[in-house]
């Protein structure tokens, strides 16, 4: 192709790439009404998109306990760092604000829409319209915004207003910030004496390489030249020998009622820990056979350093050790990755250990 032809081709391509024409290409096809109904499910603050249906607080409480409480807590108080959905009123100016449906969310439509479309986590789009109304009603109740006999429906939906609806304003950086940060900046003698006021190393929360340097630190070039790149930190973790013979499991003696109670308690755990056939590691290690097993020994799970050290020290998850750990994980093992506050009641601890004992390794 000659140079001028190439140039011409370029010009044509550029023009075609940014057409001003609004004429249609004829590509695609009209969406069918049932296709639109299946995908166009967004619900807007004015109630647009809400389907027929209703649900009461009592039903909502039951559905919530079954589908939501394992992360959000029985009272929508949130477990670990999973979202807190209730409470937090008047906390927005605190140093640790609690942003909940009652304290922060501006519109109830958002709650209904999110539950109906994106929850429960890992099983989205399994909540029916009536269940979504019921769960929403329960969350309102948990926030003290409705009485326990409240029934939410398509008809009364927009009558409910959330307390913080007026708490939001559109982006005002253009007025509030940009004028302050615009103009020729200072280039010399801009500040007086400076001193270091905060160091990230003092917090010590950065992931580390095996040598204690921040994870991903570039290896020295002398090492790289030898092909002796620092290996991932697997050696340390992998060398813990199983000591399963150490403690007999207590499955044989397990009381069915206790196991059943333990299954309920385990809802607090199962967002992170899996048990049963095919259980795999997730946020936490899978727990089949954990009772009586050597600590830090589940294949493929990257344990915290304290857990690795405890494992090397021969820690075995006897009933007693597990009970102590579960009562106060961070007190028992400072630095554990398990971000769970602990089980307050001894009966709950006994129950969950009995339940775990039913899953062999």
């Amino acid at each position, binding site marked *: 192709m000659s140079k001028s032809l190439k140039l011409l081709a370029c010009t044509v391509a550029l023009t075609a*790439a940014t057409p001003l024409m609004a004429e249609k290409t004829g590509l695609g096809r*009209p969406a069918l009404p049932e296709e639109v109904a299946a995908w166009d499910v967004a619900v807007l603050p004015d109630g647009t998109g809400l389907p027929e249906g209703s649900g009461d607080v009592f039903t909502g409480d039951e559905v919530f306990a079954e589908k939501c409480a394992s992360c959000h807590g029985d009272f929508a108080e949130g477990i670990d760092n999973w979202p807190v959905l209730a409470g937090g009123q008047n906390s927005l100016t605190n140093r640790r604000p609690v942003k909940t449906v009652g304290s922060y969310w501006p519109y109830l439509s958002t709650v209904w829409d999110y539950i109906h479309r994106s929850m429960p986590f890992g099983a989205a789009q399994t909540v029916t319209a009536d269940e979504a109304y019921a769960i929403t009603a329960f969350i309102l109740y948990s926030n003290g915004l409705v009485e326990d006999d409240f029934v939410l429906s398509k008809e009364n939906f927009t009558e409910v207003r959330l307390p913080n609806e007026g708490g939001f304003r559109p982006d005002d950086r253009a007025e509030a910030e940009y004028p302050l940060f*615009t103009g020729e900046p200072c280039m010399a003698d801009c500040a007086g004496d400076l001193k270091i006021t905060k160091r990230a190393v003092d917090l010590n929360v950065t992931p580390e390489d095996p040598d204690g340097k921040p994870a*991903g630190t570039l290896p020295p070039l002398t090492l790289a030249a030898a*092909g002796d790149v620092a290996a991932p930190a697997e050696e340390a973790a992998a060398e813990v020998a199983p000591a399963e013979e150490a403690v007999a499991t207590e499955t044989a003696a397990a009381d069915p009622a206790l196991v059943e109670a333990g299954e309920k308690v385990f809802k607090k755990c199962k967002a*992170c820990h899996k048990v049963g056939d095919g259980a795999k590691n997730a946020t936490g290690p899978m727990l089949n056979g954990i009772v009586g097993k050597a600590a830090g020994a589940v294949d493929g799970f990257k344990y915290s350093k304290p857990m690795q050290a405890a494992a090397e020290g021969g820690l075995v998850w006897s009933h007693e050790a597990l009970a102590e750990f579960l009562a106060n994980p961070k007190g028992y093992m400072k630095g554990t990755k398990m971000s769970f506050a602990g089980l307050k009641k001894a009966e709950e601890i006994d129950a969950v250990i009995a339940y775990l004992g039913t899953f062999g390794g």
Partner: protein
Amino acid sequence: MAETEKKGPNRRAVLGAGLATGALAAGMGRAQEADPLITEVQDWASSFGDPVDAAPYGTPIRFESHVVRRNVEWLTESPVSSINFTPIHALEGTITPQGCAFERHHSGAIELSKADYRLMISGLVETPMVFTYEDLMRFPRTVTTAFCECAANGGMEWGGAQLEGCQFTQGMIHNMEYTGVPLRLLLEEAGVKPEGKWVYVEGADASSNGRSMPLEKALDDVLVAFFANGEALRKEHGYPVRLVVPGFEGNMWVKWLRRIGVYDQAVESREETSKYTDLMADGSARKWTWVMDAKSVITSPSPQAPIRHGKGPLVITGLAWSGHGKIDRVDVSLDGGKNWQTARLSGDVKPKALTRFHLDIDWDGSELLLQSRAMDETGYVQPTKDQLREIRGLNNVYHNNSIQTWWVRADGEVENVEIA
């Protein structure tokens, strides 16, 4: 591979390299002994290397195995609703390879084939439409380079210096060259009704992450993209189709794009009310803070990229970007912001894309408090963290575009610090 490592020449290479470095560090100017890497015939200079097709799709050589995405496990409760960080301390230039570009999923990265892909346009349009992947491939295309930055990039640093390394403090960003169809063409195909003012975009994954944007933005530079850096999008970046929203926060760059809804109002979804809003000191909150303001960071030296060569010539390198347009200038300070010098902008400066800057200095081996300060074409100057705190308080999570300070110690190690 282990066999290769045990071969003689490599071990000698270690010795040789060690000697050379030692000699230079001692200031002797030249090695006392000839370098065996030069004087001896190395294995690789005599025998065969890999044949073609040894790796039909190549991955980085093993010496670069540290250049990977990394996450900070305590940040989130579940790895399928989580984020990791681009190793920007180890990259140069401006294009981020897809394989190490940060990931943010709200319900995990899904596997969706081109054959199963459908895109719907519904709402306030003359004809609700469905497009297949093949349909999209027949629309006129454009190519755009753009940075995608999570609104929470730097969010952990509001309260103080927290994480050790720019991968963790500023690594929720990537910059790719996208090819796709302007969203405008698809909207025109469906025909936006006069009352349509907002465009809502959502994904096909279980989180069905949805965000609203003004129609003007949707008609301006938004791209329905299917190629990144010359190849198909990676699964974790939304294969086969994602939205590219230049200059706007990453949460709006919906992956596995499934539906575009036209409305007369914002949908006010969870991701634009409960999250991605900015809580101010007085308890009120900003919403619709879409644009990522001008920002920069020195990527090396930085905590994960210490100075190991001693004093003398030192390359200071970093990235600058602005959601408002082009980067106009980047200044670098060696003394914590007392004095500044203007860095070189290297390569092409593109709007709403990463810009690389360099400053070459002769390091005298003394401590430095390194900072960079970006300015964009609107005249906006990247603020300090204290300037932002003064306006927003400490409860902001998102949009921390403040100046980063690295403390370079005399031994070349680098720390993340705050100064006052």
